[in-house]
């Protein structure tokens, strides 16, 4: 994290002049005389001055604390059919293309070229800014409420915002129905790693905690970082850039890994050793990484816990498709639930926890929106017992403990 903090300190001073003084500044100020380097597509975070990039989805940026910090790893636990997590990966790569970052894509199932050809097209500036302005206008309209007479205890609570909007123009919007133009894609440098092409037919297995497939992937990333100078070893280039690494479906059997197949896998520590090495590479260079893992296939809970702890930010997608919730009228506005499993401690004791843990997502044409899940009002004429049971069931699912769902529901009696 050496690189990111030295760049961000100059940005911190700048951002403190621009933003509102209510941000929690610490009394510690590092005196740094580094030149003002600004890398396209990044900005310093308002919370702690870390250099952050957008994940490509503005509402996801808001949920994970402003954006993805450079030098950290985002873990996305895939939904059952890998439809929405794959979409998130494509947004992440598309954002890299639009910002001009160097993009690296590693995959074992789909050829990387196929994924790259399928990236969503960015929306031109004027349409996107209209959407943001409209959002702000509607929020202002309902401001002029009189003081509350009956529910006066709730007077001082902040307004419940269902749409999580970010205030700055950091991050772009994409049209999911169109694919990105080829010229735009070819303007950036893209490196790929496709396992079936890289893995030799015979692998001489030396005993090692990491398997051959992951070792090759780690080596390829390390080589790219050293060659292009993302870790600062190459002589001073004209402009510094960020490397965005996207890894699809790590841990799946196609990566020659058996943690998804067995409860007591033979190579239980292979993926975790790879993630450890990846963390070492990320912390010492200007890179950021998104990894998707099919966690619903991993039977051993302990392994998934270890994988989560070795990543910095972890979210899980749970789509309603194919489950009985798809037809449940309570969830008709959404495509699935989004769980924030972990947020990182970036050079400080606290971590950015989201306001609420009940988040749901919906993939719209021009936006992947993540909202606070709220139950629709119970407007049925006859208040039947069945609907009450439904509400109670979903209320039980909504409340969650610090690390997951509440294990004892005897404390919840509504």
């Amino acid at each position, binding site marked *: *994290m*050496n690189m990111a*903090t030295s760049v961000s300190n100059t940005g911190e001073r700048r951002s403190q002049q621009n933003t509102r003084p209510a941000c*929690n500044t*610490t009394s*510690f100020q590092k005196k740094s005389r580094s030149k003002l380097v600004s890398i396209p597509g990044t900005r310093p975070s308002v919370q702690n001055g870390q250099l952050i990039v957008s994940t490509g989805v503005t509402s996801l940026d808001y949920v994970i604390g402003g954006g993805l910090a450079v030098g950290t790893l985002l873990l996305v636990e895939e939904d059952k059919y890998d439809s929405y997590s794959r979409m998130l990966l494509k947004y992440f790569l598309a954002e890299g293309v639009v910002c001009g970052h160097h993009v690296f894509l590693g995959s074992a199932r789909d050829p990387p070229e196929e994924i790259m050809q399928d990236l969503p097209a960015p929306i031109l500036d004027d349409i996107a800014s209209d959407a943001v302005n409209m959002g702000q206008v509607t929020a202002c309209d309902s401001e002029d409420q009189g003081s509350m007479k009956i529910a006066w205890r709730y007077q001082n609570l902040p307004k419940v915002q269902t749409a999580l909007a970010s205030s700055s123009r950091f991050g772009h919007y994409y049209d999911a129905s169109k694919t990105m133009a080829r010229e735009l894609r070819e303007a950036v440098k893209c490196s790929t790693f496709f396992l079936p092409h890289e893995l030799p037919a015979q692998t001489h297995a*030396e*005993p*090692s*905690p*990491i398997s051959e497939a992951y*070792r090759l992937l*780690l*080596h390829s990333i*390390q080589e790219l970082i050293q060659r292009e100078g993302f870790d600062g070893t190459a002589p001073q280039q004209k402009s510094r850039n960020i490397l965005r690494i996207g890894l699809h479906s790590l841990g799946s059997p196609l990566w020659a890994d058996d943690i998804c197949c067995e409860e007591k896998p033979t190579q*239980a*520590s292979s993926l*975790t*050793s790879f993630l*450890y*090495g990846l*963390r*070492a*590479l990320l*912390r*010492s260079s200007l890179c950021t990484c998104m990894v998707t893992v099919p966690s619903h296939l991993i039977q051993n*809970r*302990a392994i998934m*816990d*270890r994988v989560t*702890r*070795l990543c910095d930010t972890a979210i899980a997608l749970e789509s309603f498709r194919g489950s009985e919730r798809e037809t449940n009228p309570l969830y008709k506005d959404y495509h699935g639930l989004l769980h924030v499993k972990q947020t990182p*401690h*970036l*050079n*400080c*004791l*606290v*971590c950015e*926890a989201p*306001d609420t*843990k009940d988040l749901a997502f919906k993939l719209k044409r021009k936006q992947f929106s993540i909202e606070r899940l709220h139950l629709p009002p119970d407007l049925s004429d006859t208040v039947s017992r069945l609907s009450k049971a439904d509400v109670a069931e979903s209320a039980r699912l909504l*409340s*969650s*403990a*610090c*690390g*997951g769902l*509440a*294990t*004892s529901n005897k*404390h919840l009696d509504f």
Partner: protein
Amino acid sequence: MSGYLGSLLGFSTEKIEKGDFILLSDRNADASFLINHFLSLYLRAGCKVCFLGLVQSFSHYSAVALRLGVNLVQAREQGQLVFLEGLKDSVSQLLQQGPNSEACPMGFLRGSQTDLRSLFRFVQRSVGGAGEWSPSILLVDDMSVLLSLGVSVGAILDFSHYCRTTVCHQLQGNMVMLVRVGEEEDDEEGPELLLKALTHQCSLALSVQGLPTGYCRDIHGQVEVRWKERGAGPGGALTQKKLLQYKVHDKGVSFFARGTSSAVL
């Protein structure tokens, strides 16, 4: 450490107990704030500290320690702190690049070594040697990442036993280790077994968990403190237990008795 927890446990920078093995553990929570607190406490007390930082980079610990009032860079230059940055050498060892030397502490990543001998030799070199700093302290953050790197539970327990013998008994110093486990399951071998074995050996155990009633922004979790009374009668060590709640701030942590959080009162 100051405050409620410090006075409860009798920790202060003036008086450091000798021969203590302190075990920090967490279950679905993050106890890294405790290890950072212990690091700054021992450095302020003038002890010789050997810190095995296996999960984060040196600049992270340095930034956190600065907020707690301790300068790690200076301590390292003066020789008070010996810091092992596990991440730095890990890639070259995982990819088996470079010479295969016995001296590299992260050499167990190569796969040719099945135990943590080289790591222990590093610890031995670092805590030994009489100097103006005393007593010697060993801090490990954290032990369960070694399980993720393919080391067996037996090898980790051997390592902790060797360290305890060297640091706590021979040198009369202290040892602090952090272990992280997930959901409690009966058939889980690795982390639970490690936790149970280390809890049995330790003299003070702090275990951090989330609140049993759910997520709360103002109270980040609870800490259960168990310690063995010294000088207990022939009946054996008497174990005392206490439950506190905590909230992590930017500059420190505040502990309070259950139900007395400032958000509630």
